[in-house]
């Protein structure tokens, strides 16, 4: 077994160090070492998007990233989306728009949607669908997910322009 490594990151705004084996994925470390189980594992090969996190301002499937690759990185997970002040607008839109049923894919969708809206605050339906196509949902048929992203976009454009930058979405 290879020696464990110390990895230093900025995770959800806090400097976070962790010890990991070189073979551990970022997903495994988030869930098993750091107890951040909000990031979900659906397939472990980058097909389902349930483990989407924001790494240095870009969405990645954390199952396809080795934890040691996160050295020096800025990371954002679902646990860092809501603040003490309350839910993020995209979380609110998913809640009010009934965009989840079982909820297992929801953290991944929220991470991807929030990043996408930070890049494209006025998306068309087609753009939303194209940019969320890497996240699988088996319950909703996607209709209410699209509508919730649309709602978040129209209602809270300003929020994304202002806040996401500070939170390190882009």
């Amino acid at each position, binding site marked *: 077994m290879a020696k464990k490594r110390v990895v230093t990151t900025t995770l959800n705004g806090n400097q976070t160090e962790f010890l990991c084996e070189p073979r551990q994925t970022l997903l495994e470390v988030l*869930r098993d070492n750091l107890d951040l189980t909000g990031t979900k594992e*659906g397939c472990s090969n980058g*097909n389902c998007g349930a483990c989407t996190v924001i790494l240095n301002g870009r969405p990645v499937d954390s199952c396809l990233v080795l934890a040691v690759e996160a050295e020096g990185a800025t990371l954002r997970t679902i646990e860092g989306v809501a603040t003490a002040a309350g839910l993020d607008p995209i979380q609110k839109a998913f809640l009010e728009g009934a965009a989840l049923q*079982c909820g*297992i894919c929801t953290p991944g969708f929220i991470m991807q949607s929030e990043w996408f809206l930070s890049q494209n605050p006025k998306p068309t339906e087609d753009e*939303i669908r194209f940019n*969320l196509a890497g996240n*699988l949902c088996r319950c909703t*048929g996607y*209709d209410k997910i699209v509508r919730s992203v649309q709602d978040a976009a129209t209602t809270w454009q300003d929020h994304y322009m202002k806040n996401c930058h500070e939170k390190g979405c882009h």
Partner: protein
Amino acid sequence: MATANKYKVIGTRPVRHDGVDKVTGRARYGADTKIQGMLYSAMLRSPHAHAKIKRLDTSKAEKLPGVRAVVTAKDLPDPGTRIAQLGEGAVCMAHLTRNVLAREKVLYKGHAIAAVAADNIHIAEEAVKLIEIEYEPLPVLLDVREAMKPSAIVLNDDVRCEEVGAGTTGSTPTNVAKHFHFEKGNVADGFAKAKVVVEREFVTGTVHQGYIEPHAATATWNPDGRVTIWCCTQGSFTVRQQCSELLGVPLGHIKVVPTEIGGGFGGKISVYLEPVAAALSKKSGKPVKLVMDRAAVLEATGPTPASYMKVKIGVDGDGKITAGTAYMAFDAGAFPGSPIGMAAMCAFACYDVPNGSVDGYDVCVNKPRTNAYRAPGATNGAFAVESVIDEICEKLKLDPLEFRAKNAAKEGTRRVDGPVFPRIGMWETVDYLKKSEHYSTPLPKPKFGGKVGRGVASGFWFNCGLKSAAFATVNTDGSVSLSLGTTDIGGSRASIAMQLAETLGLTATDINPNVVDTDAVGYNDVTGGSRVTFATGIAAYEAGEDIKRQMVQRAAVLWDVDPSQVSYDVATASLIGPGKNITFKALAEQVNHCGGPVIGRGFSSEANQGGSFGTHCVDVEVDPDTGKTQILRYTISQDVGTAVHPSYVEGQLQGGVVQGIGWALNEEYWYDDKGVMRNASYLDYRIPTIYDVPMIDTILVEVPDPEHPFGVRGVGEVPIVPPPAAVANAIANAVGVRMEKLPMSPPNLLKEILAGK
């Protein structure tokens, strides 16, 4: 439509109670369980689809540093020939235990053989590679028709063909475990009266429920023999029963704690990992977690059957069905138990068929043992029956919705398999769809330069009642905590809490619904059969009525009057006595001092649902050069009884439709001739993405079910039934090719288009 204004809470769209946990990542799903000192584990699975196990030696694996326990089938008691009643019906324990851990033979690729618990998952995975095993490969059977031949190799020596209805059982080992035969009227006379008779054969592939959350179980076996299991299941009580039988532990010594569940659709009822995790915990003395990977989910849980069907329908000059016959052979997978019986009952259920017969066969093949998948069996049958009906409508130049309106099953119609329908809404779903904007609008122009077409299809699913129990305690601030034993797979905490709120005159947010463990609430059957909002809703309603009676007593104590002088006013959520009244909330503050805590209990035991129908319309565009089909527009019209939370009702309809679209266009297990699934990943077993489908328009037709106090009908399953047929009919309309095979993927469709040319 009709019932929305009758209620205060029912028909509104409150935020679900478990919603914040689920959008913040705080909700705990199966794999999120972490117990102090927990071990991680991995499984050895068969690379062969059919083989004898000649030798199995785990000693090297046991010696690897960090390995704490290894278990094989020897660590589970041999149940002999015992048949156990497991809530969902009779289960042959010899088959169930062999499905959990193979004994003499492996019967499908991915069949579990042994499991290792270690300090971390990587050590466990390394140890699995050290298990020594020798196989003697056997011939592989993958096709139902091949498996039915008398010359076929028999998978299970103990299987004899049961003639359901006749009550007889064959005497020789066979792969055909069951034969259902249903008959009504005189089929020959019926066909003689027909003007048009169409008979076609259909085949469908194996498909998976495709829930995003892999199976996961964590177990602790305490030194006193008591076992606790945390798992993502549709039925904590059936897990308890199955584990009790499989482990030989008294039922009352097992507590099952249901975690959140990341989708199930019928696939998370049978146990796979739970007894193995428990056996590993017993052997290691530590808590053990066992999680499947995606390939194991596809290869080794319970997909829904591939099928071969032959359907014949006759229609007279007035457009009335005169007769129908169906022959359906379903692959059960390695062990008997496909949903062929339900498929046979559903086949003609949408229509008034005066003369009909259905034959159904349950056939073992070298694939994973099949399980329920959303209206199990009905989708296969509807693909065949609704395709034949569409062809007849085309031949007779009948509008397919007019035809369905004319032949629709109604209250009093007798199904081919016997039962007579109570009040149902089949006709209404057709009528609403006929009047819809979609159906009245001409086909759109092609968007991608292909050919456009429109198709319709209907579907039926029973919906079941089964047993539910709940209790509710009144808190001193007037809120009510509701304890439930049916796991919440898509919003049922909200839909049940809303019914309790309606009963008491409170708001949805006054109710705190909780899904609790098997020691904390009365017996509940599984979350399945579209039954929870119906049956657990009744239990919550009864608990509410019980609370009302107790609140009346408490008010009587408070006012020192006879309880008969006090009544509960739902409209104002208050107690009214002689010249006095007090709100529910104000009385709640005082109940502990005027009679004691108020605990309402309720259950649903006898209520049965009337069944659910849907009629769908889809516009497609087919690229005749590639065979690719794009869904342009989709409308579903469904009888939903009373839509308790319309957003989640719409969500069930939309989700079911999109699963049906996946089944129609993409999804199937690709097996090579050795029985190895070649597409055991989400990349290759391709479920619909958000980019593949349009918005799904819903028409909620409300024909209240008289069996339920608020007219609730289950809504979850029937929406998956019509889509493959509706899409097939739309493809026929677009390119003139009738697909008799699922999926209608580009290669499959292109082949037929080219053959047609």
